[in-house]
Every structure is written in C-alpha cells, then in structure tokens.
C-alpha cells in the first residue's frame, strides 16, 4: 500500500519537476513580454533530441548536454528575434498564433533534422535502483530532482540578487518605467527567451533517460507546463513550481489509482476547477511578488 503510494509519489514529483521547469519558462517569458510562448514545449524536445543526437555521435555526455542546452538557447533567442519581436504590438490572439506557428515549425524542423523515432539517452549514473521503503528509486530520478532544485535556486538568485535579474523583474512590473530608468527592455526580452529555452532544454535532457523523447514530445509537455504556470498564477515563479508539482503528483496518482488513460486529462481538470473558483490561479493574487 505505502510502497505503491510512494512509487506514484516519486514518479509524480519527477515529472512534476519537469512541468515546473517548463512552467517557469512560461512565467519568465510572460513577465518579460506578456506573451504566452506556446513553443515552450519544443524547447524541451529540442534540448532532449540534440543531446541524444550529440551523444550518439560520440560526444561525451557532459559536453553533449552543455552543447544541447546552448543549441536550444540559440533557438530561443532566434525565435524571439525573428518571430516575436517584429510582432510586439500585436494582440494576444495574434501572438498566440505566432508562437503556435513557431511550435509547428520547430516540430517540422526536428522531424527533418532528426527523425520520427523514439530516442533514449543513457542514464547519467547507471541503472542500479535504490530501494526506498519498498518503492524503487532510479538514480536518474535523483538527477532530475537535484537538477531542478539547483536550477530553481539559481533562478531565485538571478532574479533577486543580480542587476540583470532585477532589471527583468522591473520590466515585468512596468515596462515603460523600466525603460525610462535606462533598462534595455529589448535585451530583457531576448534574455527571457534564452533563459526559458535553457530551462526547457535542461528539463528535457534530464528526463529523457526516464521517458524517451521524440520530435512530437514537446506538445503535451508544453501544455502541461502552461497548466502549471496558470495554476500557480501566471508570472509567479514559486507558483509555477508548486503548480508543476501539483500537476505531476495528481497525474501520477490518477494514473496509479484511477485510470492511466485519463492521466493526461488530470492537469486540465485541475486547471479548470482552479480557474472557476480562483480566476487568478492559486497564488496569482495582485500584489504578490512575481518570479
């Protein structure tokens, strides 16, 4: 009983950590630009696919990981430069369609550059399972959780302690005032896309030894990351992390105890319930600190 509960919890927290990273990506871009980047899930896919590709080509894993993150960040920056910046004044709906177009475009590109097959990345430190009160903990799970925690702490440091991070926060509160204070808001926008792409890539890479990856893997991950971000209150970093964990755990529990077929519906049922009763998400009160 307890062991199966624990097992579900472990897998929920693991996948929840990835949703959290993805949700953070949504929030960072949203704060910088009020754009919902529907291509966020593609960052996860590109990070994972390029890491797999580089590793298969014989590049040592650590180097492959770093290169894959850099490639994805470059894609993020290009996306911002070529597609989002030229349309900055467009309506919300228009921007949603642009980023959805970008997501279809990137998926098509991935299918051309790589292929349509499933790929797996080798576990970072072996496959010897660890027994935890009757549940099985794979070493890769520790990698996922450890990486997520470190990334989140780094982000918190970045936004609260560095000038660049504070400039981004300032821009999210009042772009005009930030601009008048000498903050280069265009640069903030660019950084936000690079950062979000990097976050997606990291998440995609660490989870791939557990879940596999393929060119069309980004869609559902992206949508669930979006749910996580909305659940926590769009633009609220801590909220996105909490939202990601809630979605991940609920999903794993539903798959374990109810029906695995409806696993993917869980995130959306939660989000609907929350939106109906708390229209600004769980932590999206006005005046709460963002990111």
């Amino acid at each position, binding site marked *: 009983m307890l062991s199966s509960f624990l097992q579900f919890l472990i897998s929920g927290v693991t996948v929840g950590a990835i949703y959290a990273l993805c949700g953070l990506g949504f929030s960072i871009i*949203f704060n910088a630009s009020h754009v*919902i980047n529907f291509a966020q899930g593609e960052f996860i896919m590109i990070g994972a696919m390029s890491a797999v590709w580089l590793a298969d080509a014989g590049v040592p894993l650590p180097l492959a990981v770093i290169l894959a993150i850099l490639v994805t960040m470059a894609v993020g920056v290009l996306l911002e430069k070529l*597609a989002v910046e*030229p*349309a900055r*004044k*467009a*309506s*919300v*709906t*228009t*921007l*949603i*369609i*642009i980023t*959805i*177009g*970008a*997501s*279809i*475009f*990137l*998926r*098509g*590109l991935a*299918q*051309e550059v790589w292929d349509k097959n499933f790929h797996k990345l080798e576990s970072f430190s072996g496959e010897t399972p660890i027994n935890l009160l009757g549940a099985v903990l794979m070493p890769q799970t520790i990698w996922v959780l450890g990486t997520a925690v470190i990334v989140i702490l780094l982000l918190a440091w970045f936004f609260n302690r560095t000038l660049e991070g504070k400039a981004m926060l300032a821009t999210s509160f009042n772009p005009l005032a930030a601009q008048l204070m000498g903050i280069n808001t265009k640069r903030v926008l660019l950084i936000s896309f690079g950062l979000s792409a990097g976050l997606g890539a990291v998440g995609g890479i660490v989870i791939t030894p557990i879940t596999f990856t393929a060119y069309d893997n980004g*869609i559902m991950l992206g*949508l669930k990351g*979006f*749910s996580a971000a*909305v659940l926590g209150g*769009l633009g609220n970093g801590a909220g996105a992390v909490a939202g990601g964990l809630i979605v991940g755990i609920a999903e794993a529990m539903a798959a374990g105890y109810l*029906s695995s*077929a*409806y696993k*993917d*519906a869980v995130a*959306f*049922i939660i*989000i*609907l319930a929350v*939106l*109906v009763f708390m*229209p*600004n*998400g769980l932590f999206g009160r006005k005046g709460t600190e963002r990111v």
Partner: protein
Amino acid sequence: MASTSRWAGLGALAVFLAVLPQVLPNNYYVDVAVLAGFNAIVCVGLNLLIGYAGQISLGHAGFFGLGAYSSAILVTHYGWPPLAALLAGALLVGLLAFAIARPILKLKGHYLAMATLGIGIIISIVLNTEAQITGGPDGIAAGNFSLGGFELKGERAWYWVIAGLLLVTVWLATNLVDSPVGRALRALHGSEVGAEVVGVDTTRYKVLVFVVSAVIASIAGSLFAHYTSQLTPTKADFFKSIELVTMVVFGGMASTFGALVGAAFLTMLPQVLTVFEDYEPIILGGIMMGTMIFMPRGLVPTISAFLTRRRP
C-alpha cells in the same frame, strides 16, 4: 455597415458558390470545397466570439467533435434519425457551453485561453478513451445523412447542402453583427466597463456568443460526421482547435468574409503542401508566423485597407 453592402456581399458569395462546382475539374476538388465549407461555417461562428466579442477559444474543435460524435453515436448505436441526432447534439453542446461559459468567461486573456484549451483537450481525451461507444482512435462511421427517405450521397450533393448552409450562416451572422446584440458584443470587445455603464450586461452577452458559436460548431460537426466515411477524434483535438482559430485570425478578425477566406485558404493549403511531403509542417508553421507578423489584422482587412488607401 450599410445593408446594401451586406446584400452585395451575400449576393457575391451566392454567385461564387453557385459557379464554383462548374469550374472544379473533378470530385477531389469538390471534396476539398466541401471541407472548406464545413470549416467556414465553424469559423463564421467562432469569429463572432473571437473577432467581434474579443474572447478567445482554443477548444472549439471540442464542440465540433462533440456534435459529430453525438450524431455518430446516436445514429449508429441507438438508431436515431440523423436530424434528431443533430438537434440532440446541438442541445447537448449548447447546454454544456452554457454551463461552463459563466465561470469561464469571467476569465480574461490567457486564463480564458487556458480554460478553453483544457475543455477541448478533455473532450478529445474522452473521445479517444471511451472506445466502446466512440470507437477510440479508429473512429466511428455515422453512415449517410437521410431525411424523410431522401439520402444525401456524393460530394456534389453535399456541396449544395453545405453551400446553402454556409450562405444561411453568413446571412445570420451579418444580421447579428449589425443589431443591438452585435453592437453589444463589439462594445464589450472595445471596452467592457464602457459597455457596462450604458446598460450592457457584458457577462450575459459573452455567455450568449460563446453558446451560439459552440452550437454552430456542433451542427457543422454533426453534418460532418455523416459526410466523412470515418469520424476520428483528430477532428476534436487541440490541433483542430488551433487550426480553426488560425483560420479566423488569418482571414481577418471581426470580418465575416475574412473568416470565409481564412477557412478556404487554410483548408486548401495542406492539399497543396502535400507535394512537399515531410516539409509540410515547416511550411505551415512558417506561413502562420509570417502572416501574423506582417499582417497582424489578417488578410481581408489588410487588403481592404490597402485598397481604400490607394483609391484617389
């Protein structure tokens, strides 16, 4: 919006729809035209919601799918006459839309996008999963549409039915837009609080237009279930929802004829792009981004603005 220009537009559309099948070389093209017609009907309704009232929905394929599956299931499993199944589906979708509209339409912008997206995805997951009644991913065949002994068969017969229905939908939509109801919808798009202070119950109108657009999608879905040989859940999924929104925005928001152009263009596009085979998504994605960047108002308003400017 003078009534003369409205009749001129409707007349032009009627003539176009009447001439079109004469110049289409074979039934393959007629089939594409019928598919474009289905999409156009849904888009005219969706445009009332997105373009005129300014409320986004990323889940309208869910309503299309719910209508389609209601028809398919009631006809094949329970032997209902197609028209009764269509009406039952429309009623079901109308009630569902009404029940969810009130809480959901309180939400703004991205939250509304998320909520409608969620509803669409849940519907699509249910259709995929409840295979015993829906046929699951393989789909279900609803058979031909028949009414009082007359059976609707073949692309050309369907063409006339869909063309007629499209014409009626456009007529009703243009009527509505240019009425106190339509002005209230456009007003709440322009400024919700501005509309409220002169007595427009904005919540009521948002619910109304949401239900209307959902019911139109449902009716089109019901007919589509009979037109297609095999109805699959892909017609109700997230991508179909996105495709519908893209049609509306591509053609031009707050332009009924824009919605028609968008639906026609984006229905034909994949047919043309099949020659590019695997490059299709790259090109489709590129076109979506390109048009939105360079013509954020959509095709028809951009072109008509260009023409008016050039006129001396």
